[in-house]
């Protein structure tokens, strides 16, 4: 009996998953092929320690045993998913040889020329950054983590590295043609998300009137405009209004973060009757879009999206389609939550996971204290 194996590494707050799939060579001989998903963690705080990457990459190389990786998948452009391989290569001298890579569609270099509406999150990010420079007391530790994780300049270096990682790189989205984009002969892949035009995921941004200016010198530090109330105007209400007009930046930073999460490549791997779902950090809007396009179907394994947040777990009616109750067959159902508490606000939402996910399948957590840094959970095995 063959076994498909899922190995989930402890990279603190981030994802790194190795999937080993029994397959066949061109000559029909049995051959195990490997898929590596993401590898990264956040830049700051306890959840962002880079020491985790050495043992992870060394373990991956050991599994590959001198052969190239068959498929690398970068789900989306957040540092907690993309920075590991660049770090390993440039800082540790551990470089993977990769045959095929799938990057989310919006990671293509010319993407924003084709879809200019999707550029908004980049522009808003720069505005928020200027506000926080001008008014640093607003940057709480959580905001600091989010700013770093969404910094397009930091991710740009990592993404550029990943674009050139493989012999063959594809930018994937729902409906794209996967022929010749992987070497698997038996396993089947179904891409549920993202949509090709990711501006659909942006949702609503709050209007921002941040009131930040720079002097004539372009290198000067931004400063906060502090208008004063004109004669006859209620001063308390005036200052309250000025601050209120600024406050949309917090919601917009969350919207930027959500937008990037929703560009996650969500793919279902089908092998000998098993269905394994890897949704990256897809959030509600993406789940809803997948449902709209009738993508959702029962699976046997779920990597809990977005580190177990309340916005990453599909709503109950959608979860019913992925992990229906009662199960449609007698195969074992499992889920893994890879997370690191106190890095992102309210992530993971354990109450919600206990209420909604645990009744449907066996749930394992990989987080602080469960396994050593850079180690992994006992492999999840799927016999077939």
């Amino acid at each position, binding site marked *: 009996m063959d076994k498909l194996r899922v190995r989930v590494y402890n990279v603190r707050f981030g994802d790194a998953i190795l999937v080993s799939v029994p397959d066949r060579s061109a000559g029909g001989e049995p051959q195990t092929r490997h898929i590596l998903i993401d590898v990264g963690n956040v830049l700051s705080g306890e959840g962002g320690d880079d020491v985790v990457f050495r043992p992870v990459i060394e373990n991956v190389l050991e599994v590959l045993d001198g052969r190239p990786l068959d498929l690398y998948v970068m789900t989306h452009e957040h540092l907690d998913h993309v920075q590991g391989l660049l770090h390993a290569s440039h800082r540790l001298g551990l470089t993977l040889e990769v045959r095929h890579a799938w990057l989310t569609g919006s990671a293509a270099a010319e993407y924003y020329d084709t879809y200019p509406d999707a550029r908004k999150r980049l522009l808003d990010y720069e505005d928020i950054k200027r506000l926080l420079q001008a008014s640093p007391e607003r940057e709480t530790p959580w905001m600091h983590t989010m700013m770093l994780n969404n910094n397009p300049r930091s991710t740009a270096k990592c993404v550029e590295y990943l674009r050139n990682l493989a012999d063959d790189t594809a930018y994937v989205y729902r409906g794209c043609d996967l022929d010749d984009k992987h070497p698997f002969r038996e396993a089947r892949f179904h891409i549920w998300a993202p949509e090709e035009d990711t501006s659909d995921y942006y949702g609503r941004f709050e*209007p921002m009137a941040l009131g930040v200016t720079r002097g004539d010198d372009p290198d000067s530090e931004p400063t906060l405009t502090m208008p004063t109330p004109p004669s006859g105007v209620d001063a308390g*209400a005036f200052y309250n209004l*000025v601050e*209120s*007009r600024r406050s949309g930046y917090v919601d917009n930073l969350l919207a930027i973060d959500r937008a990037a999460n929703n560009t996650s490549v969500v793919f279902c791997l089908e092998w000998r009757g098993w269905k394994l779902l890897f949704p990256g950090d897809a959030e509600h809007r993406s789940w809803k879009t997948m449902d709209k396009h009738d993508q959702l179907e029962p699976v046997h394994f779920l990597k809990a999206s977005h580190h177990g947040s309340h916005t990453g777990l599909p709503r109950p009616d959608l979860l019913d389609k992925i992990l229906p109750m009662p199960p449609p067959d007698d195969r074992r159902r499992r889920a893994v939550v890879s997370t690191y508490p106190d890095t992102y606000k309210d992530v993971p939402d354990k109450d919600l996971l206990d209420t909604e996910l645990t009744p449907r399948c066996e749930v394992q957590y990989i987080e602080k204290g469960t396994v050593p840094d850079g180690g992994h959970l006992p492999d999840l095995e799927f016999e077939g």
Partner: protein
Amino acid sequence: MKVRVPMMIQDPITAKYKGMRQVEGFDIKHEDFFLDGPVTRRVAVLDFDADTGDLMRGARFKPPAPGRVLGTYEIADENDIYAPDFGQVSVFATVVKTMYMFEEEDALGRRLAWAFDGPQLLIIPRAGQWDNAYYERDSHSLQLFYFTNPHNPGEMIYTSLSRDIVAHETGHAILDGIAPELYNSMTPQSLALHEAIADLTALLMAFRSGTLRETVLDQTGGSIRNSTAFSSIAEEFGMARNPEGGSLRSLLNEKTLGPDDANRVARNDPHALSEVLSGALYAVMVEIHEGLRREYVEGDPDREFSVSGKALADGADRFKRMIFRALDYLPPGEVSFADYGRAIIAADQASHPDDTQEREWICDQFVTRQMVANREALQVETNFEHPALKEVDLETLVESDWAAYEFANRNRDLLGVPQEVPFQIWPRLDVTKLYYQRDGKRKIRECLFKVSWDQSEANQLGRRFPDRRQITVGTTLAVDWDTRMIRALLRSDHSDRPQEQQKQQEDRDRMLRRLGDEGLMRLGPLAIGPDGKELRSVVRADSANGLMRVRGVARTLHIVREV
């Protein structure tokens, strides 16, 4: 002193395609002072530069010359409607004119009060780039945005130059002062009522423009039965967003709540729901206009066109009285369209018991559009005696909270307040309104007394939320000051109307479930942002002892693309 100011008649595009002038004058009379901005005691225009956050110089006030009474604001060129000084003054004039319309003695008959704790409504005419506009209680403001026309990239659309949009948002602010509890309502029809009244405020402001009345009636042969600039709300804005669709909303519609009707709307969407009510009331307005035309021609059909302008002006006044006075009679708490319908009927019946025509039209519309099951559901008792009012000192009742609480506690049965349930008394109002009756004008002084209390009901939103939620219901008691007769007694506690109660509860479930699903409503700490403050874009639900309580749902009106 009075101050003459220019204001937009409708919006730039309507003026263009109707071939009429864009601007007309308005005289502001009743303000304590005028300052640059414009700024008065009740309204202040704050023209921020959206990019830098700097406050632009406000239009300069020009007081009357010595010995004269007419002041104005300096505007370099009144034809340059896109210049900051014109925009500041025009939006100010529109807001103040809208306020005056509500305050007229045949409408509310009193000075307006804002729902927030502060003297001034702050108007931001160029709030930033966005295709939106909204009233926000927390910041005491109307935020009016501008945006590039996506179908004509060289053209900028300023919502502050749309009289419909400014009047609509001012209508929200005014209604929030009259019925502040609607802001916290969880009932889609309560929120839709806010929208419908705001749209009807824009409609009434359109009727007030002599230029627009003349232009439209000229083009329609004296009728408003078909689509006109009156029935179309925010034409320039709507056409910029969707050139095929025309205006943002049309009051000329057949929309209903009938579940099997082709024109049904989603019961959980306040914006869509609002069109049922505003469409019904617009249809009544059309009947009023046609009725007055028939009356004024005095048997000579050739005069139909010539009397149409007067019929429209008079009809609009009647319509205004009907829909605004009813707001005072609206019971506090979670209200339905039926509650508002009963408030309209009560306000009209109490003053004009023998003139039934307009009430008939109202009933027809509410039944046809399935806002009520039948005409009986709109029946209300008016002008009746009750022993509780015989000896009560209304002056004391209005002035003393203690007396008001004591009165309510003693008369729980009359007010429908369950025994042992704590209640809240709202500020009482002593108002005098002008009524036009067959034998002439008459002023009626009323005491308006409102009491509310909380109830709990099942909260079927799924496991993430508590099993029960708290809702507020209440009663309005309107007493004739001179006769001590009860003019109206209206309740939003529908326990004696189980069908209505069940439908409203189901609608609340649907809307709250949608807000929860879209992440717009979050429980407790999930509504707090990474800066430790409440997120602007979500509504916070709190849970205590298994009971969910939600406040500020009305904020979602602009969260889900309000205008």
